[in-house]
């Protein structure tokens, strides 16, 4: 999952986020331990979207005696390519940070990632919430590390000013359009953000496309050709975006600014609603004196996933080429111990993924509220984690950008998506087969 800060040189589309680790490649100081102590290397990422994670990693390593762990914070743009390159060359790290879905499943298919079931405690693994997207042929390839709720951020003061109930945001599309209309009449840009660097279009798919399907496996069926984006049901999300554009409900600068500057418009009081993520919530809440709220994208779709809160999950895994897989698995278990989960919250201000975390520790009201409403059995995963890279680059991003800009209709977006899906199948016959198999694990 890319999301967080958009950046520039992405080596791979998946890289997304942005980089510039505050600390660069930090390596833990070697500690003087018995010669038998295994040594592990860990490549990780996340300080970029969750400041404090570095402190957590360092503290965890310093307090661990069963192995000597050295860590390296990776740059956003190379999280995947660096790992795959090292794995292909036969010298991967023992522990590797893994984004969800295809962002690590491709490495699984290439044979670079080790199955964790059988290697570590089943209960701990299950409770860490790796999500269904980490399963292939009955195996699980990641532990969850921390969750990333995805929602619509809205400015309560602007809602008040437009005469809307700031504590009861719209739930269905008609009410949403009505709210947008009132906001617009009050001279406030209703919805949008910044799509120039493309991630906005991805997030829009995350929220809106999910409404049109019943299982995440159904999304995969669209890529492998069992279903068709030209079916109005499967491009309705783009048609709805077109509707917002035509009604003048998107902010006028959406096409020329980037993702984060776009989200910043909401706490700044210049935009009523935009898409955002959990790790930003605390800061935006503090900046507005608690006057921002989180809502689910109002529903138009009839799919079983419509209207449900979305949570993506960052995770950790073990390389197939690791020479100390048991020691690496033990370290993952240690990171999931109650004491470490508490430390995670203490050092990052954000929540760890595991169910074993004691939620009563949460102090901030905005974060606690997010925990209550998003961490339910009702939550769904992020469908864009299933997208083949080619589809992501050539269909998902271009369609969203152009529909939001007004130079493409929802129907044309459906045509383009169908064509690119077909091209992806032609270019990648081998991946299509693996995807087909993956659907079995996903269509539940």
């Amino acid at each position: 999952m890319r999301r967080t800060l958009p950046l520039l040189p992405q080596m791979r589309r998946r890289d997304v986020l942005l980089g510039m680790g505050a600390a660069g490649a930090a390596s833990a100081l070697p500690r003087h331990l018995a010669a038998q102590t295994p040594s592990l290397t860990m490549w990780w990422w996340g300080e970029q979207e969750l400041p404090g994670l570095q402190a957590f990693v360092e503290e965890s390593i310093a307090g661990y005696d069963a192995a000597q762990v050295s860590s390296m914070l990776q740059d956003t743009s190379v999280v995947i390519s660096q790992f795959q390159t090292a794995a292909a060359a036969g010298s991967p790290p023992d522990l590797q940070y893994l984004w969800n879905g295809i962002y690590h499943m491709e490495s699984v298919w290439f044979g670079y990632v080790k199955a964790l079931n059988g290697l570590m405690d089943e209960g701990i693994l299950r409770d860490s919430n790796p999500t269904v997207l980490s399963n292939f042929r009955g195996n699980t390839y990641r532990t969850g590390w921390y969750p990333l709720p995805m929602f619509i951020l809205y400015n309560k003061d602007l809602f008040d000013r437009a005469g809307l109930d700031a504590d009861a945001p719209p739930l269905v599309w008609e009410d949403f359009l009505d709210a947008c209309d009132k906001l617009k009449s009050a001279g406030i840009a209703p919805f949008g953000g910044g799509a120039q660097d493309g991630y906005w279009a991805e997030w829009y798919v995350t929220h809106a496309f999910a409404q049109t399907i019943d299982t995440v496996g159904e999304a995969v069926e669209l890529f492998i050709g069992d279903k068709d984006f030209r079916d109005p049901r499967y491009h309705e999300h783009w048609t709805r975006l077109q509707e917002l554009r035509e009604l003048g409900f998107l902010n006028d600068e959406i096409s020329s600014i980037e993702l984060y500057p776009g989200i910043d418009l909401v706490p700044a009081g210049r935009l009523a609603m935009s898409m955002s993520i959990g790790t930003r919530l605390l800061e935006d809440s503090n900046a507005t004196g608690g006057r921002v709220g989180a809502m689910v994208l109002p529903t138009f779709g009839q799919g079983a996933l419509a209207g449900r809160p979305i949570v993506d999950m960052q995770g950790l895994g073990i390389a197939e080429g690791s020479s100390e897989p048991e020691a690496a698995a033990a370290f993952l278990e240690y990171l999931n111990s109650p004491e470490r989960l508490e430390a995670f919250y203490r050092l990052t201000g954000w929540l760890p993924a595991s169910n074993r975390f004691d939620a009563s520790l949460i102090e901030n009201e905005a974060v606690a509220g997010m925990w209550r409403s998003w961490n339910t059995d009702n939550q769904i995963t992020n469908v864009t984690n299933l997208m083949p890279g080619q589809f992501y680059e050539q269909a998902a991003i271009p369609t969203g950008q152009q529909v939001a800009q007004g130079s493409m209709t929802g129907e044309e977006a459906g045509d383009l998506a169908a064509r690119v899906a077909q091209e992806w199948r032609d270019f990648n016959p081998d991946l299509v087969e693996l995807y087909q198999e993956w659907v079995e694990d996903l269509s539940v």
Partner: protein
Amino acid sequence: MTNPRTLVADGFKQAALGAAALVALAPTVFMIVTALKPQSEYMVNKVGLPREPVLEHFRAVLGSPEFFRWMGNSALLVTGTVLLSTAVAALAAYAIARMEFRGRLTLLALCTALMAVPPVVMVVPLFVLYTQIGLISSYHGAILIYAALVTPFSVYLLTTFFRTIPAEMFEAAVLDGAGDFQILTRIVLPLALPALLTLVIVNALWVWNDLLIAVIFLQDDAKRTLMAGIAVFQGRYNNQIPLTMAGMAVASAPMIILYIIFQRQFVRGLMAGAVK
């Protein structure tokens, strides 16, 4: 000289040059002026001069070790590449221009053909090769690529230049008992100084400015170049425009300062290479 018509015409010409200079300078001025504005002021005043200039953005950029590390990395790559490619090209060009040997013309033709290779074309096979022999994210690996990409043009240019040196100078040197290497270092290279200057400038600018090779072959955070670094920097702070602009200003400072100091050599060097 004081003909009023000439005066008017000159006025127009000066005005035209002034307008062109304004356009050429505008982005640099915008960059510096914006970097001096507080974030809050930029939101409401994007065009004008800062009401109360602040240095906090420059201080933030100059206070972060990253920028200097990136500059150091870029400087290292530039130095390594320029030294390597100039030495290699000078030796080869001397042989091609002044010696008889089989394969001479083939070699020159090959070099010329390699000038046609767009860098992006080399990325795929080199990436695979470097992965296999473990040269990804190594300075010497990157320097070899940069040097190979700029050397064909260097050989071509120096060969052309060496051929223009009068034969008598060589004959005199041989009579004095000088060997080839001495002729090259004592006579040919000093005479070819303008061309060498051109090469150093063009090649250094090319390597300094490169983004493509840098992002693919130097993935390690500690080896990031300035161009790759600012790309990341602007992504990280893209909601803080004045800070971003301070970063850009600091990043362009070394070349601008070098340009101001060596302006005449800069322009003269480029001219020498361009129009033999």
